[in-house]
C-alpha cells in the first residue's frame, strides 16, 4: 500500500476576494503526527475545512485520501471514509451525554449496532481517559478538557485512519496540556495518523514528527519541527520581529 495516506494537491479556498488558502500542497504519511502551525488568519482551520468538506470543499485543487479523490464528496461521506476531525468552536452536542454522543457517532460514522457501539465507547473513553462517572451528564456541563476528550473520543468511534485536531490545547491549563500530549501519543500509537493544528508550540514541538507552517494561506516552511521553528521566515511571520 502507498505510504501517503492523505494528499493535498494545489488546494485553494477563495471567499469573495479573500484567498484564505492558496495553492497548498502536502502529503501525510501513514502513521505520522504532522503538526500545522501558523499565525492567526494564516488559513489553518480553512485548510481543515476544505479537506473534510465541512462546510465546503476546496475552490480548486485535489484532495486524495487512501487513493481516492474526495474533494467533491459530501462532508458526511468523507467522515465515514475515515477522516475524523475536531473543532475549536461548537465543540460539543450540549444536550447529549457522552454516552449518547458516542452512540450516534458509532451509529452514523462507524455503522455500528448498539452493542458494538457500547463496547467501542468503553474503549475510546478509556483511551482518552474520560472519567466513567461523567458519562451520563449533558455535555454542556462538562469542563473544557472533558469536552475535548469527548470530541476526540467521538472521532475515534469509527476507527478512523486519520484524526485531525484543530487547536485542541486552546483554553487548557498546563497539566491538561500535558495530559493531552500523552493522550495524542497514545492515539497515534494505536495506529491513527494525526494532523495537529496548534498554537501552543510546546505541544506541537513535543509530539509532531514533521511540521508545516502556513502563512497567508500558503505553505511557508515544511520539515523537521526543531529546524522549522528556527527558520527566519517563520519567526518573522509569527512575531514580525524586525531585529536581526
Amino acid at each position, binding site marked *: 500500500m502507498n505510504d501517503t495516506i492523505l494528499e493535498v494537491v494545489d488546494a485553494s479556498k477563495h471567499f469573495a476576494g479573500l484567498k484564505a488558502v492558496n495553492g497548498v500542497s502536502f502529503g501525510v504519511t501513514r502513521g505520522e503526527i504532522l503538526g500545522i502551525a501558523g499565525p*492567526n488568519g494564516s488559513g489553518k482551520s480553512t485548510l481543515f475545512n476544505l479537506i473534510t468538506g465541512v462546510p465546503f470543499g476546496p475552490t480548486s485543487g485535489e484532495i486524495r485520501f487512501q487513493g481516492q479523490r474526495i474533494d467533491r464528496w459530501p462532508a458526511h461521506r468523507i467522515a465515514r471514509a475515515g477522516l475524523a476531525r475536531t473543532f475549536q468552536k461548537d465543540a460539543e452536542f450540549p444536550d447529549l451525554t457522552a454516552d449518547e454522543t458516542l452512540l450516534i457517532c458509532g451509529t452514523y460514522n462507524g455503522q455500528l449496532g448498539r452493542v458494538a457501539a457500547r463496547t467501542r465507547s468503553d474503549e475510546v473513553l478509556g483511551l482518552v481517559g474520560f472519567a466513567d462517572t461523567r458519562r451520563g451528564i449533558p455535555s454542556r456541563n462538562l469542563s473544557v478538557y472533558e469536552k475535548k476528550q469527548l470530541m476526540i473520543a467521538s472521532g475515534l468511534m469509527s476507527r478512523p485512519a486519520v484524526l485531525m485536531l484543530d487547536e485542541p490545547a486552546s483554553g487548557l491549563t498546563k497539566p491538561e496540556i500535558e495530559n493531552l500530549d500523552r493522550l495524542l501519543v497514545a492515539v497515534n500509537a494505536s495506529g491513527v495518523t494525526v494532523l495537529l493544528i496548534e498554537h501552543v508550540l510546546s505541544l506541537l*514541538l513535543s509530539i509532531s514528527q514533521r511540521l508545516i507552517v502556513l502563512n497567508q494561506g500558503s505553505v511557508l516552511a515544511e520539515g523537521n519541527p526543531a529546524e522549522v521553528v528556527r527558520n527566519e521566515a517563520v519567526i*518573522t511571520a509569527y*512575531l514580525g520581529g524586525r531585529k536581526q
Partner: protein
Amino acid sequence: MMPLLDVKDVQAGYGDMRVLHGLSLHIGPQESIGLFGPNGHGKTTLLKTISSLVRPTAGSITFDGTDITGRKPPAIVEAGLIHAPQGNTLFGNMRIAETLELAAFSKRASNGAEKRLDEVYALFPRLAERKTQLAKTLSGGERQMLSIGCALMCAPRLLMLDEPTLGLSPRLKEELGAAIGEISKSGVPLIVVEQDIEFLLSLTDRLYLVEHGVVVREIDRASAPDHEEVMRLYFGEGGTH
C-alpha cells in the same frame, strides 16, 4: 498624576463563560500601552468591555476622572474612547467615503469632520484612491486602514486598536505601523493589542502580558525581554528547544 484610563478588577465574559477574572491596568496621560499574550485569554474582551460592547459583571472603568462603567456604547464614543475592533469587515456594502463620513456620527465627532476626513485621506492615500469602492471589495490591509480611519473620524481622545496588523504581509505591516506611529505622535494615546512584542515596543511605552483573564506581567521599554524570553512568554516553557 491622574491616569487617563483606569481599569480596576474588571470581570466580564459571555453568558456563563467568564473571560476576565479581575483585570486591572491603567494608562497615564500622554502614554500609550500595548497588550499581548496568548489567544483567547481576554485581550479582545477587555477592549470590548472598555467600549461597553460587553458589560462587566464586577470592577470599574474610569476615563479621564469619570466613572464610565456600564455606560452605553454611544456615551463611551461621545466621551472620546474609541475602539477599532479586530479583523474588521466594517460595513461590507458601504462605500469607503460613505463609511468615513458616517463614522463621524457622534456629536463631538461631527465638529471638524471634514478636516479630519482630509487628514485620514492624507494618512492613507489608498483610501482616497478607492473612495467609491465598497468596503467588502477591499484587501485585508485596506480594511484595516478603513477601520483605523473610521476610528480617527470619531475624534479619539484614546484610541484602542485590536490586532491592526493581523494577517498582513511584513511590508504592509510596516506601512501600517508607520501610520499608527504618526497617529500616536499627533498626540492620541493608544492601547494596541498585538502578538508582536517588538512591534508593540516601537509604538508604546509599556506592555501588559494578559493570560487567563488577568495581567500577569508588566514590561517597560527598559526591561524589554530578549528573543528567547519572548518565545518562552508566548509558547510556554520549552518554547524553543
